[in-house]
């Protein structure tokens, strides 16, 4: 939050080494028609994001998202903390 989007040359500017299906690429195509059409806030937000970042979001395991949605809010916190702790444990000096 210290500089404008894309100025850090970070992950958002990199080409992703993943195979993105044709339909997914079609979904991301941008046209003049879309630009002049009314959009929801959600769509406006997506348009402001780098396309590679949007593409990467298709690689997220949606099964995991569905599973998380089945948990209560506080159970979701417990889930992420368990993983965070297990990751921390691998870096801890005995």
């Amino acid at each position, binding site marked *: 939050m210290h500089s404008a*989007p894309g100025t850090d040359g970070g*992950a*958002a500017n990199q080409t992703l080494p993943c195979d993105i299906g044709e339909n997914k690429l079609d979904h991301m195509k941008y046209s003049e028609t879309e630009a002049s059409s009314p959009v929801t806030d959600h769509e406006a937000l997506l348009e*402001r994001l780098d396309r590679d*970042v949007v593409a990467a979001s298709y690689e997220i395991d949606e099964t995991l998202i569905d599973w998380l949605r089945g948990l209560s809010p506080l159970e*979701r916190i*417990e889930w*992420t903390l368990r993983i965070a*702790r297990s990751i921390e444990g691998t870096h801890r000096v005995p």
Partner: protein
Amino acid sequence: MSPENRDGLIMALCRADISFIVVGGMAAVLQGAPIVTHDLDIVHRRSSQNLDNLLELLANLDARHREQPAGRVLKPTMAEISGSGHLNLSTDLGPLDVLCELERGEGYEQLLPHTDLFSDSGVEFRVLRLEKLIEIKSSSGRAKDRLSLPALLAALRSRPTE
């Protein structure tokens, strides 16, 4: 459950009658984004009563700044929590980042319209919506923020329509 569970912190904040908004990675997790984080970030209301309640709770939780120069134990102060900065604290219930405002100068009142009320285990608390989180993180220059965007977008896209 471990005493380090952040739901313990949320419960403690609610039971102390503190007005706050969960922001950051934990807000995304609460809305089903599959990301890993161990920080609880909150933006609190800076009204007199709320500041008193928050400072009292922080004292009860033995809160201290995580960055401690020369091993000195620094406790949060009223001046700090009523200002505009960020306090990165350790507490008996785990790390807690108390944010008076986000970097863009948005405090509790400005963020409130962008929140949803969550309830669980008998408590209610406000969480910054995914749309606003994405907007904030996408305008950030921090790699950490931008790396979390795909997971946030995926969670937003798969959210059931109402």
